[in-house]
């Protein structure tokens, strides 16, 4: 009575403990990725057939640059979701960081200082969330929903409800290196660092453990409180970074710039295979989730579909993707039980 798909052979020799080929976990990841890649490719083909300008280098560059902010946030959110956590306050944090960036730039502070302040402040706010979740045991959903409201209000207050223009500030985000926007390069760096942290360090294994079974992780000696604080801090830092990038891209500090962004972030992460129950997900999946969101929004406009349909299509894709994963998951667990 060993595993799901191997018959229990009577009197068989000791099983090999490892079969050839891809690991089952990798297969599970690929099962999540495949439909996303399919959606991206299909949309690309259809839209290009309709309007060849879609697949041009300029448009792809624009597409990536427009979604770098979302992409950076999804890396942080994926880390959190894998650890069984959630941060809904990122939308407001982006607004606040954008407003702070613009007003600091107008006050003539150097770019390095402004970026550093936003990153550190973001990380500190994240650390606060982590402390409250770990020690006061406030459910992350409620806590960060409250945080979302608090910082939305703060952004509006700081900016007196109007965007603060800064035409000459933070232009590096829009600059190009070897034909690629710096914003996109930053996103790529965040992806690489996030993937290293989650998939190639034992810290990452601890994150999966906390998300999969916190009690078991604690009893095995995992510093669960510290892991949570680290996750929220990293996510807060990335939210600060995203705020700077957002202000730089649009050339202003918009106090409403991040409104609703948190839901798109969670949607993209969940599309990429992260589970709100924790213990599941990957950085690559999150990146694919962002690409799907980006492609859908962009190709709909290329296909001359009114942009009022954007959310509808994204919603249907999200529900469909999660339903497919959930049913295959249930089937897998049933199969495991039967032979058990």
């Amino acid at each position, binding site marked *: 009575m060993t595993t799901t798909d191997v018959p229990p052979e009577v009197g068989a020799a000791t099983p090999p403990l490892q079969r050839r080929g891809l690991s*089952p976990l990798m297969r599970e990841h690929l099962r999540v990725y495949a439909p996303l890649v399919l959606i991206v490719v299909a949309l690309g083909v259809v839209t290009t057939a309709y309007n060849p300008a879609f697949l041009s280098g300029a448009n792809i560059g624009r597409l990536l640059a427009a979604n770098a902010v979302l992409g950076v946030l999804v890396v942080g959110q994926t880390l959190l979701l894998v650890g069984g956590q959630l941060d809904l306050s990122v939308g407001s944090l982006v607004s606040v960081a954008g407003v702070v960036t613009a007003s600091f730039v107008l006050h003539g502070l150097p770019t390095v200082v402004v970026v550093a302040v936003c990153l550190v402040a973001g990380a500190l706010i994240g650390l606060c969330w982590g402390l409250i979740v770990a020690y006061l045991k406030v459910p992350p959903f409620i806590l960060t929903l409250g945080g979302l409201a608090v910082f939305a209000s703060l952004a509006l207050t700081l900016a007196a409800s109007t965007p603060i223009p800064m035409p000459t500030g933070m232009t590096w985000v829009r600059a190009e290196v070897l034909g690629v926007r710096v914003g996109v390069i930053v996103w790529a760096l965040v992806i690489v660092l996030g993937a290293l942290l989650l998939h190639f360090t034992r810290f990452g*294994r601890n994150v999966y453990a906390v998300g999969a079974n916190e009690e078991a992780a604690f009893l095995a000696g995992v510093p669960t409180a510290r892991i949570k604080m680290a996750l929220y801090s990293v996510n807060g830092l990335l939210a600060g970074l995203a705020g700077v990038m957002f202000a730089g891209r649009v050339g202003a500090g918009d106090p409403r710039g991040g409104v609703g962004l948190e839901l798109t972030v969670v949607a993209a992460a969940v599309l990429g295979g992260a589970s709100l129950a924790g213990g599941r997900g990957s950085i690559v999946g999150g990146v694919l989730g962002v690409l799907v969101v980006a492609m859908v929004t962009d190709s709909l406009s290329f296909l001359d579909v009114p942009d009022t349909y954007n959310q509808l299509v994204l919603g249907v894709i999200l529900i469909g993707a999660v339903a497919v994963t959930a049913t295959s998951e249930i089937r897998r667990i049933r199969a495991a039980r039967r032979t058990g």
Partner: protein
Amino acid sequence: MIELQNVSRSFPGARALTDVSVTFRPGRVHALVGENGAGKSTLIKVASGVLQPDSGEIRVDGRPVRLTPRDARELQIRVLHQERQVALTRSVADNVVLGEAPRNRFGLSGQWLVEREARRRLQRVGVELDVRAPVATLSVAQRQLLELARAVTFEARCLIMDEPTASLHPEEIEQLFEVVRRVREHGVGVVYISHHLSEVIALADDYTVLRDGRRVGGGLVADTTTDGLVAQMFGSEVSLRREDIHGGGTRPGDVAARLRGVHFGRRLKGVDLDLRFGETVVINGPVGSGAAELGRLLSGAARPTAGVVELMGEPGSTRRRAAMRGVALIPADRKREGLLLDRPIHENSELAGDAAHPMTWYSAARAADRCRRGGRALGLKAADVRLPVRGLSGGNQQKVLIDRWLRVDARVLVLDEPTVGIDIPSKAEIYRQLRALTRAGAAVVVLSTEYQEIRCVADRVIVMRDGVVAGEIPGVDATEQALFALGARS
């Protein structure tokens, strides 16, 4: 009367039942024995309508039927499941009457009615519980008694009990037996599944032995013995005797853990205890005696409310600190407190190592290789260490948990009911493993209520009663009577 005739059932890739015929008669206790994976679970699922047989027939009172879970319920076939099925946040009363809340003549149900009915049912099985308490505050054993109260009705045609004694103390088991006998006298047919063959001999009238999905033996319990049952289950003899497993002790070394005047709320009232390297100490005591709490304190998972707990000379360790210094904890509830069920086997076996060194690089391929080597040494049976640990049998899951701590060279091992729900050959392997660790100089604490287990592994037995140490017996002298006398004396 429920008859299964020539029932077969297979799953993709596995044949779970082959041509099994068995009859459950009213007013008799029918024991179903066999090692894990022999087909017992499948058989009771077929008998309770959860699974449909591929071929063969089910007859109830002579009439062939096609059972669904709903039909089974209407035919008064009740199942007391091994997996606890309780709503944690609801009260005891709500759980006892779950799904069949009493209604008054207006068809309405009220808290008062529910509580009265719950009290009546609890009384019937002789269990004392506060009906208003949330289930989350109950111990595992109390939850099991609650489920018994839910499942037992004298109107039942057939009551199927899957490992009902898995986490009960001798006195509670006796209480359970009383209930079963009373139910039997009312003409209910009881199907009783247990790994404890002594229970089968003590309680059952008929028995059926399954091996690899086939019926390999059966008849009247009066005509057989424990050894006879074991021989039928495995085809050869597997021993669970102290002489074959214990292998003698060594001279105990330094103190690994020292407890002085330890209180823990009202559960422990001034406990002194020394645990040394190179000995296996069994802590024996029923639910509420403080045995489980001692396990938590010894591993740093809980802090005493008064007194001192010193682990390897250091007072006041947190769980993390203790784990880093090599204090292993293997909880009784493997699935809830031990395993990451949906993560690969190799991640489960490296969890303690990962926790100790988070700031190092990780390679899944190398982790799987290490796990394969460790798994071979422990006799782990799995097709691939990269599969989720959920699919393993209880015995193999427990081996993974032991491997987790061997990997970080744990020197102090605290095991809470280490062989609950594990088949006999795996039990023997785990006992041998614990003895080998002890001889190699580890300090082992086993919290156990299973007499056979205590006999096999103990150098010393400490008996707990009402939060204090009731007494201590050397392992060799720990007979069932001696333990019971010490624990029950007041």
